[in-house]
């Protein structure tokens, strides 16, 4: 177990060093949040000039929701490149290297994708607290709520990773997967609550979103934090996330085991 962990944490450490190497990039990274939140703030201030409430959201509620989602996006979004990494590894024959080594490709990619989110948490958390303070938004302190929130964030991360991994694994059949990926992620953008809270969408779309895994990525953790209270509704959210993880995990395993039999390369 110790050797297993050392192996995968070594991958994680290397990734962290790569990410913090260039200073211009680090500075740009730090400035990204204020700029993006600034755009959201300006836009919604204009919208709230014309109304007091959008759905059940007042201006402050909306800002808190977007702040949490923004923070989550910073943590979770680096995993969006997983499909491309898997596509590259399969298409360029790099997969040979992993197949010849005593590692499982899935966990390897998972740990490799954990590096950037950890840096994002370190950079994003101070900004999250700073923006909460600047905008006068509540900071949740209930340890039980924070624990549930963290579990939900982790579940959201795993859901997105599995979706990405499945899309990447489709390379075994389609060679080029970017059209499918982009299409799925357009739908994802709407139904994950990234663009606008799902509850504000037209009713038919809210119903559709209940049958998709995307709401577990941003909307569920965002709502748990923004609502600030635990209850049966939150338990329901968590159960739905776990069910989606189980389903996607099975799908990923199936796609991988079927796909790998189609894999061929010239070796190297």
């Amino acid at each position: 177990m110790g050797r297993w962990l050392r192996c995968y944490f070594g991958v994680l450490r290397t990734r962290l060093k790569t990410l913090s190497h260039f200073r211009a990039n680090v500075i740009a990274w730090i400035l990204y949040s204020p700029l993006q939140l600034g755009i959201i703030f300006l836009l919604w201030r204009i919208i709230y000039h014309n109304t007091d409430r959008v759905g059940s959201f007042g201006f402050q509620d909306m800002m808190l929701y977007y702040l949490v989602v923004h923070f989550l996006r910073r943590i979770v979004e680096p995993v969006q490149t997983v499909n491309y990494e898997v596509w590259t590894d399969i298409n360029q024959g790099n997969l040979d290297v992993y197949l010849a080594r005593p590692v499982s490709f899935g966990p390897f990619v998972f740990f490799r994708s954990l590096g950037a989110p950890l840096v994002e948490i370190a950079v994003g958390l101070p900004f999250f607290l700073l923006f909460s303070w600047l905008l006068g938004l509540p900071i949740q302190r209930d340890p039980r709520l924070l624990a549930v929130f963290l579990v939900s964030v982790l579940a959201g991360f795993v859901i997105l990773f599995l979706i990405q991994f499945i899309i990447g694994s489709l390379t075994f059949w389609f060679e080029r997967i970017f059209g499918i990926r982009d299409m799925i992620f357009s739908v994802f953008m709407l139904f994950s609550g990234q663009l606008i809270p799902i509850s504000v969408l037209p009713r038919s779309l809210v119903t559709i979103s209940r049958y998709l895994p995307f709401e577990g990525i941003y909307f569920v953790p965002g709502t748990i934090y923004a609502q600030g209270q635990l209850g049966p509704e939150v338990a329901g959210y968590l159960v739905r996330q776990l069910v989606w993880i189980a389903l996607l995990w099975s799908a990923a395993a199936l796609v991988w085991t079927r796909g790998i039999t189609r894999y061929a390369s010239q070796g190297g």
Partner: protein
Amino acid sequence: MWRKYSRLLFRFVMISFRDMSEFRIDFFTSILHSLIYQAIFIVFWKSVLSFTAKDLGGWSFPDLVILTAFTLVSNAVMQWFAGLLQLPRKVLKGELDKYLSKPLSPLFALVAEDMNGMASMQAMVSAVLILGSACLYFGVHPTLGGILVSLLLMVVGCVVLLLIQGWISMLTFWWGDVSRLSSLFMLSGEFERYPINLFPLGVRRLLTWVIPIGAISTYPVLVFLGRAESAVRYLGIAAVLALFWAVVFRFSWRKALARYEAFGG
């Protein structure tokens, strides 16, 4: 010289089309993606406007749909210059040698090699589909002059933004990897989706004079809808900025090339 470059350009365009059309499923799903992606922003405006008054600071739902479609037009123009975004990676990996050792402008080769002709066409087809449907459905009747001037303004605006983007990519020669700096610049492009004349004066000026996002979205749409205060003024500002950034770009490119070094390959 012009004949040689035209011939080469034609070849690169053909390669770009063949490269993308090789995967047919991907070709059609990409068009579908463009349409779905824009539809999502239309749903966004629909959702927002259902909670506010009839319009948003003078921008009605049809206007916002047209604004959304216009982002595809600028995207179609930008796709031809996607090679500029590859510059940081190529400099860091020493791949620029390939272009420097050929008897043609390295900048031309760099841009021409990564032109996304097919992606541009997909974006343009989607834009025309949405714009055409929106004009028919909502009864918007733009004049031919309005269409042409709005397109011209958009192209000049795209040139300015591309020059700035290229200049930022060029900083790789001095600072190493600047991909996140590029992402930061592209993030300001999110303003493209919103009517910038609703924002506070300072932001409006910034997005008109410094990072002229307005020239590729809000202003062309106002010209298209026949509601622009002065199309000539917008065009003038965009042309001055294009000239300024062209000079900066040319000067920096020369300095950058003088600084470049690699192990060769």
